[in-house]
């Protein structure tokens, strides 16, 4: 093991005998608590935060302006045409919902798989999930045309004695995304309560004490509480795991239940889920890298964490590539001429440019993560994350638009172009997303302190050596020391 003073931050050794330290720099419980909660309680809000917040809040304003304009005028302000009745709104919806999958994957699935490294990044990823789902929820809501009857989506008793059609995948979406948003929120909040209590106990201002006091529900770290808490957390994770599969599967059903060539294929559900995780991880990385740099979290969110994320990106990116290939193969194998045409059209038709952007960003460039040098290089990974974000947006664009613009009847083919309203609405949704991210960073603990503490070696009551249960001679481990032991 290399362990010179300069590269103690590199914990990406592949030595199989060595269990990777997740938290570096000789941190202990005290320093973890200080590092994370001081960002919220002590540090003066940096000027850069205000600058960024102004920009993102401005973009959010544009979003609501555009929505207002849309409501006053109608969906004609978008670039929709016949036959492309689903344009950017659906693309953006699927894009944002997809982003929202990384949080639950990290917090639930990796939890069940005992991936301890998740603890450093799960809070952040879960927060991002919720914000992405909020952004996603806007688009179908404003796309219904007659917004004043949007409540028809829900089974609300009414004087017309009508009920929604539960056999429609669009209604499944309402339930799937609604459930996902709710469960993610419960999960996120449950995970945050012990940390909010930490903030309550460290806060100096009366207002802060009251707000964090109320939010932390009176948590005092009682083990009798922890006992049920851990059980509930485990079961919520168990519930969230099939839920996360179901959400993007249901989103994929919106397309796949239709008979349209290029949409109707059985691999869509798992393929959409893989793509969602892929895009979500890329988005987590996109934000996490500047955040850990800026807030001095490099010892908590280490290179090892990032490398693991990159491996997941490589795996899910390859799954997506596998799905693309399978679709092409079966389009040929199945022998349906319109299905075959849809795929040739994707690759060589009027939207070929979008298709090749998608393939390059989703399938080709992530393969660079096979090389350890590249997947442990911060600039390289950040650039590749951006590529994935772009590629996954284009994936949804290609699926939605290329199939619709050239369907069964050549006489009704048309080329789809977004209008400035489409573009500004999408841009505005980024504003909303980043506004929420900035607020989160400023007011809530962005690392799950309590969970991080559990994966530190000193948290083990038998740390150090093999005690026999019942050995009363506890010890304060030698390595409970602040920085510099390396």
């Amino acid at each position, binding site marked *: 093991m290399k362990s010179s003073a300069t590269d103690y931050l590199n914990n990406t050794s592949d030595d199989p005998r060595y269990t990777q330290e997740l938290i570096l720099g000789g941190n202990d419980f005290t320093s973890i608590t200080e590092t994370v909660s001081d960002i919220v309680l002590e540090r003066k809000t940096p000027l850069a935060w205000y600058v960024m917040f102004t920009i993102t809040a401005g973009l959010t304003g544009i979003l609501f302006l555009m929505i207002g304009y849309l409501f006053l005028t109608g969906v004609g302000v978008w670039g929709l045409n016949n036959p492309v009745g689903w344009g950017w709104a659906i693309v953006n919806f699927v894009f944002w919902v997809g982003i929202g999958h990384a949080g639950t994957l990290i917090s639930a699935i990796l939890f069940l798989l005992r991936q301890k490294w998740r603890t450093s990044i799960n809070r952040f990823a879960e927060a991002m999930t919720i914000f992405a789902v909020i952004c996603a929820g806007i688009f179908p809501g404003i796309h219904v045309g007659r917004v004043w009857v949007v409540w028809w989506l829900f089974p609300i008793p009414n004087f017309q004695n009508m009920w929604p059609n539960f056999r429609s995948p669009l209604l499944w979406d309402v*339930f799937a995304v609604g459930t996902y948003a709710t469960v993610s929120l419960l999960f996120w909040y449950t995970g945050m309560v012990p940390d909010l209590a930490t903030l309550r106990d460290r806060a100096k201002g009366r207002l802060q004490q009251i707000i964090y006091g109320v939010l932390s529900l009176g948590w005092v770290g009682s*083990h009798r509480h922890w006992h049920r*808490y851990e059980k509930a957390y485990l079961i919520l994770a168990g519930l969230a795991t099939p839920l996360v599969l179901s959400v993007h599967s249901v989103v994929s059903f919106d397309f796949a239940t239709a008979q349209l060539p290029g949409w109707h294929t059985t691999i869509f559900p798992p393929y959409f889920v893989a793509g969602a995780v892929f895009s979500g991880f890329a988005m987590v990385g996109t934000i996490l890298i500047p955040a850990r740099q800026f807030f001095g979290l490099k010892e908590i969110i280490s290179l090892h964490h990032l490398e693991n994320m990159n491996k997941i990106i490589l795996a899910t990116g390859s799954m997506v590539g596998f799905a693309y290939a399978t679709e092409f193969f079966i389009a040929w194998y199945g022998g349906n001429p319109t299905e075959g045409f849809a795929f040739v059209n994707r690759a060589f038709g009027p939207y070929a440019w979008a298709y090749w952007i998608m393939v390059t960003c989703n399938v080709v460039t992530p393969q660079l993560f096979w090389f350890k040098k590249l997947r442990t290089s911060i600039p390289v990974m950040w650039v590749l994350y951006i590529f994935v974000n772009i590629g996954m947006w284009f994936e949804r664009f290609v699926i939605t638009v290329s199939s619709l613009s050239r369907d069964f009847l050549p006489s009704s083919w048309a080329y789809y172009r977004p209008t400035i309203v489409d573009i500004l609405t999408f841009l505005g949704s980024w504003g909303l997303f980043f506004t929420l991210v900035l607020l989160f960073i400023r007011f809530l603990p962005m690392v799950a302190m309590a969970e991080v503490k559990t994966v530190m070696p000193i948290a083990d009551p038998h*740390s150090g050596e093999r005690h026999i249960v019942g050995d009363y001679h506890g010890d304060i481990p030698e390595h409970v020391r602040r920085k510099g032991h390396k």
Partner: protein
Amino acid sequence: MKQGDLYGLLIEFESPSLLAAAAMRVRDAGFKKWDVHSPFPVHGMDDFMGIRGTRLPFIILGGGLIGLAAATLMQWWMNAVDYPFVISGKPLFGLPANIPIMFELTVLFSAFAAFFGMWGLNGMPRWYNPLLTSKRFRRATQDRFFIVIEARDPAFKLEKTREFLASLGGSEVEEIHESAED
């Protein structure tokens, strides 16, 4: 304001291993109304304290079954009974098209049961806790570990219990009262 009644005795430890050893001794001394407070769940503490399982899983199972039943009945009654209409040639009620919502509501209700059930069993939210009157105790959510034996424990005898706690190798024993002096 005068100090309230005695709530219990508090002792602080520096590490999970010290806490674990002490917890086992409190357990073996036969106390019932006592608790361990730590900034994170200490692994194995259920056994060290002698806590048995919780009924939470059954509450959650119940929630899930209610969700499943609600989704099934709702879809059947609304689409096949109260407001039947044929669309895209689908049966009014046919499992393939109704399973997604059945699944989602099962998960939703289970999650509600898990969330509210857990806080409910824990007696939370609880806006006032005598323990929070102790300055020292604030580190229970940060970096220190505590054991509290409550005064209402049948085996609690102020002096003897204080001596017992002091013998556990933690910090000085502190008295906690129902309300703090102001």
